[in-house]
């Protein structure tokens, strides 16, 4: 069977599986719809959280990013896992003890204000739409690369699938499909990593193989050379910065620190992750599910840097010195997609370096006609010995299109490792699982934000359950469509968009939740001002940098400006600062709000809050 046939089989099979689970887990009330009836076991919730968490960018783009970033790739690895420590220790148990449906629920009740509720809904919606557009795009990317379907058709197919299972079963269907999706994506990721680890080092555990010596056939005559040492050597020879040395290029210590911290605090403030802790039975289960979630995430996250290093090594080794005839098979198959291009300097031998003699590029956002022009002009330049035409290498370098596209690292690794075609198909199914699971989790938050927080809590508190459920389903349906539209007209490439969502979450929801739990003094007005200042500052910095060409700030003493991905830290500090500065000027929380803080802090098993299970909804 061809790769494409296998891919259709796997994708079809997994989609059928998700829809079956969704049908079996369909729900009839809002409790099932928003918090899966609070009946999810800790380990299953951990698994669902893990796949909710690991998005298209974790699965498809992260390994590629790390492989070009080297040490600095750690900002994503540490940032996207370290946040769980904050979540588990500072937020999850308390929010579960509080026990309502959404993040704005907590903010609204704790600060006893519908304004606070609405502001936090707005923050949550903004974050989720930014994040979900990246996921829908990811679905489209997988479809277009593996099935040669148009990217927009791919987005629509993804929308249709999420539409069915999210409207049918809400959180309950989403949770159990996410459990299934976790297995699909982790299997796909590990099989590839293990295969390539064995090929390069003979050790079947990728994260250990990364630190061991190369098999003799790859060591180019040296005795027992470590993979990482060899990689550093190759990098040095070709003018790339060292793979393992920290703080090279624009990634200085300040930026690595800021971006990592923004990712961590953002992780703890992302509403679609927080709501997962509402779905378990007890506070104790909430703590355990945070542990399981990070454990399941860590399985992929300690493997990803290994995949990145292996693929980096393989790619450079198999490209450099190759000729038209000896180019590896994966090059040919991915050249068609424009993720990788070769413009020769006339000697017929490939050279991928970080200098002006580099011959490997990507098409970026160039359309086929533009690319053909560049190629034609380059050929003229070669034929005329530089008298006519333009050096295409220079043109592409100036456009910032040196080196292949990051996504190729994960997508082409199975072929680099010469794996069977069905494994390549499995990777496609894994990528879709990662994108769909995250998209559905986000869509549920969007739906609950509008239908529960705005419609029910603010606009119509006497709405019957059936009406609330109907509104919930309608909103999720509309949200799927909007997300799809953003996916078709995306504001940037997948991982860039996702990385910004973290800054937004870190600067808005994380501080307000933290102060809501750990301070009995902070009142309504300071909290609202803090949220607004934090998110406005962060969003403005990102937008000004992205769309208005603003240079990153250096504050007069930093050598490198603050990376927009890390600006969330400053936004967060502003949020804390504004709230704390205003607190003495405004009254503290009301008696009820103080009683609520006390009950959230109390251990389980005492006081009225312990019987959330039996209590009526609100």
């Amino acid at each position: 069977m061809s790769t494409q046939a296998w891919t259709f089989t796997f994708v079809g099979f997994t989609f059928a599986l998700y829809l079956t689970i969704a049908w079996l887990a369909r729900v009839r009330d809002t409790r099932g719809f928003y918090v899966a009836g609070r009946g999810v076991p800790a380990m299953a919730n951990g698994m669902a959280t893990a796949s909710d968490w690991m998005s298209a960018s974790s699965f498809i783009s992260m390994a590629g990013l790390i492989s070009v970033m080297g040490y600095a790739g750690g900002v994503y690895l540490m940032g996207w896992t370290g946040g769980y420590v904050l979540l588990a220790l500072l937020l999850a148990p308390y929010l579960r003890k509080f026990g309502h449906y959404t993040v704005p629920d907590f903010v609204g009740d704790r600060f006893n204000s519908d304004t606070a509720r609405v502001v936090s809904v707005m923050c949550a919606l903004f974050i989720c739409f930014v994040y979900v557009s990246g996921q829908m795009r990811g679905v489209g990317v997988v479809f277009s690369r593996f099935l040669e379907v148009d990217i927009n058709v791919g987005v629509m197919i993804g929308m249709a699938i999420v539409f069915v299972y999210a409207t049918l079963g809400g959180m309950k269907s989403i949770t159990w499909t996410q459990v299934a999706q976790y297995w699909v994506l982790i299997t796909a990721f590990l099989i590839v990593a293990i295969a390539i680890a064995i090929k390069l080092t003979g050790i079947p555990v990728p994260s250990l193989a990364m630190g061991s010596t190369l098999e003799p056939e790859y060591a180019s005559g040296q005795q027992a050379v470590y993979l990482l040492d060899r990689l550093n050597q190759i990098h040095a020879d070709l003018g790339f910065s060292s793979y393992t040395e920290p703080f090279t290029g624009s990634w200085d210590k300040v930026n690595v620190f800021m971006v990592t911290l923004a990712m961590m605090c953002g992780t703890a403030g992302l509403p679609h992750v927080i709501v997962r802790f509402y779905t378990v039975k007890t506070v104790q289960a909430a703590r355990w599910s945070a542990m399981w979630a990070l454990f399941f995430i860590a399985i992929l996250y300690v493997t990803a840097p290994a995949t990145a290093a292996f693929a980096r090594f393989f790619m450079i080794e198999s490209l450099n010195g190759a000729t038209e005839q000896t180019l590896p098979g994966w090059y040919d198959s991915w050249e068609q997609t424009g993720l990788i291009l070769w413009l020769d300097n006339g000697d017929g031998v490939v050279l991928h370096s970080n200098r002006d003699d580099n011959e490997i590029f990507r098409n970026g956002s160039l359309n086929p006609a533009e690319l053909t022009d560049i190629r034609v002009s380059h050929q003229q330049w070669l034929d005329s010995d530089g008298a006519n035409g333009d050096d295409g290498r220079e043109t592409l370098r100036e456009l910032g299109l040196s080196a292949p596209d990051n996504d190729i690292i994960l997508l082409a690794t199975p072929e680099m490792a010469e794996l069977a075609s069905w494994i390549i198909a499995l990777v496609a199914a894994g990528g879709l699982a990662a994108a769909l699971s995250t998209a559905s989790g986000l869509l549920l938050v969007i739906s609950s934000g509008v239908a529960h927080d705005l419609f029910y809590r603010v606009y119509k508190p006497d709405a019957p359950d059936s009406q609330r459920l109907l509104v919930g389903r309608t909103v999720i349906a509309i949200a799927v469509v909007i997300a799809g539209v953003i996916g078709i007209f995306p504001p940037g490439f997948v991982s860039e968009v996702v990385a910004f969502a973290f800054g937004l979450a870190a600067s808005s929801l994380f501080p307000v939740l933290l102060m809501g739990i750990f301070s009995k003094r902070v009142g309504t007005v300071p909290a609202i001002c803090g949220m607004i200042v934090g998110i406005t500052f962060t969003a403005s910095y990102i937008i000004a940098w992205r769309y208005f060409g603003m240079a990153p700030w250096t504050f007069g003493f930093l050598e490198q400006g603050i990376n927009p991905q890390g600006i969330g830290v400053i936004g967060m500090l502003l949020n804390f600062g504004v709230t704390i500065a205003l607190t003495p000027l405004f009254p503290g929380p009301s008696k009820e709000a103080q009683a609520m803080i006390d009950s959230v802090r109390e251990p389980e098993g005492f006081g009225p809050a312990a019987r959330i299970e039996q209590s009526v909804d609100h």
Partner: protein
Amino acid sequence: MNEANESSLEARLKESLDRYWRSNLRVMAALLCLWAFVGLGCGILFADWLNQFKLPFTGFPLGFWFAQQGSIVVFVICILIYCLAMNRLDAKHHQERIDIERGEA
């Protein structure tokens, strides 16, 4: 039960709850220090210095290893310790609570 007794019962319960909350904060603070030391410290702030060493028996420069694998493993352990410590704290508080209520009855 007279009024004085009731208020002292309440006071003792409150005291017990305060103790629980303070222990909770201590556990949290200790683990957050570990989190910051390993993740932000070993993985970033001291990474360049740590890179002169290698993780024993492997080819990993130490700072690089912390940034890409070590910190993640420590994070998982961090939450595991938190779960176990909080379960113990919950049980201890539960027992205390039973003792207080019995003693006053």
